[in-house]
């Protein structure tokens, strides 16, 4: 069927393909996620990535061709970071009242996540540039790429690490918080949400938002604070070493 092959070659090379595939696969993954009652293992980002990446590998479409279309979605990460000002602004009274503690939690949590990743990577003998790419993994992907570039890591790898981090956080956060006996009242949800936003950025925040409105708001707050603190401090810390 040469006609079909011709059509496929045309379709897979136009930006329309990457954009459509991303949106359709994500919507299907999201529908499945809702169908199983929002179980953590059914995370829509995880399954979209698995389906799209294996589909591209099977059909021999390279990532650049796919990204020519998918970049229109990717582009929205920039305005989405700016949009984080909205949850921060909505919670400005709480932010002012608990400012010290929130900054402390954000700093210690971010340092613990990034520091332990670098220490473990170094101890397990990963190459130097891979270890550096691990440092900004708990910051949202577009900002993580910027930080990786500044400290000598591989931006594309940092972005993948960030997405993996977000998925692991979204998948396992609930069980970890239950094991730590953090309650499921507003106070507990604030801590759970803030933890997810700090250590698992946007993907963790999306999960928090799905579970509880308070948790989601705190996750948005944490995500915004982590972005500012990490972008400011991480390049400084790595300059010292």
């Amino acid at each position, binding site marked *: 069927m040469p006609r079909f092959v011709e059509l496929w070659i045309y379709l897979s090379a136009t930006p329309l393909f990457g954009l459509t595939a991303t*949106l359709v696969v994500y919507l299907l993954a999201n529908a499945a996620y809702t169908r199983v009652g929002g179980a953590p293992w059914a995370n829509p980002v995880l399954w979209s990535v698995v389906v799209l990446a294996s589909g591209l590998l099977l059909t021999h479409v390279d990532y650049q061709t796919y990204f020519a279309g998918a970049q229109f979605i990717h582009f929205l990460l920039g*305005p989405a970071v700016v949009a984080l000002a909205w949850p921060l602004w909505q919670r400005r009274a709480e932010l002012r009242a608990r400012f010290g*503690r929130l900054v402390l939690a954000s700093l210690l949590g971010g340092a*613990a996540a990034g520091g*332990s990743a670098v220490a473990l990577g170094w101890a*397990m003998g990963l190459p130097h540039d891979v270890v550096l790419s691990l440092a900004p993994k708990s910051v949202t992907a577009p900002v993580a790429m910027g930080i990786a570039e500044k400290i000598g890591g591989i931006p594309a790898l940092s972005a993948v690490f960030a997405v993996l981090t977000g998925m692991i956080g979204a998948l396992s956060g609930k069980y970890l918080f239950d094991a730590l006996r953090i309650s499921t009242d507003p106070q507990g949800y604030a801590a759970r949400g*803030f933890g997810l936003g700090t250590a698992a950025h946007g993907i963790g925040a999306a999960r928090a938002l799905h579970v509880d409105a308070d948790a989601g708001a705190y996750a948005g707050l944490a995500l915004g604070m982590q972005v500012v603190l990490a972008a400011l401090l991480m390049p400084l810390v790595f300059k010292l070493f």
Partner: protein
Amino acid sequence: MNGLRGMAWLLVFQSIGEVLSRGLSLPLPGPVLGMMLMLAGLRFEVVRTPVAECAGFLLTHLSLLFVPVGVGVMTHLALLGQYGGRMLVIIALSTWIGLAVTALVLYWPDRKREA
């Protein structure tokens, strides 16, 4: 119409952020500076109403925006084949450490005060 206006505001603030970041070679990325400026901009009704609508839409679909980067994992298959197991262990452990430290710093002091 408000959603579209909100998008325009977000892009305007991001652009100002990019110009400042590059022009003054500041350590903060453009979108981050844009977010900080937006925090001040939200004081004004003309900015707030449309941005609230657009931000609500963007942030509820935030996880979709990570899919294109995530698919990029396929370009690092060789690296993953060689170090994949170790990378996964490192990412999982460090994520749990980060989650636990953050949540407990916020949670413990309140609980102690009540007990």
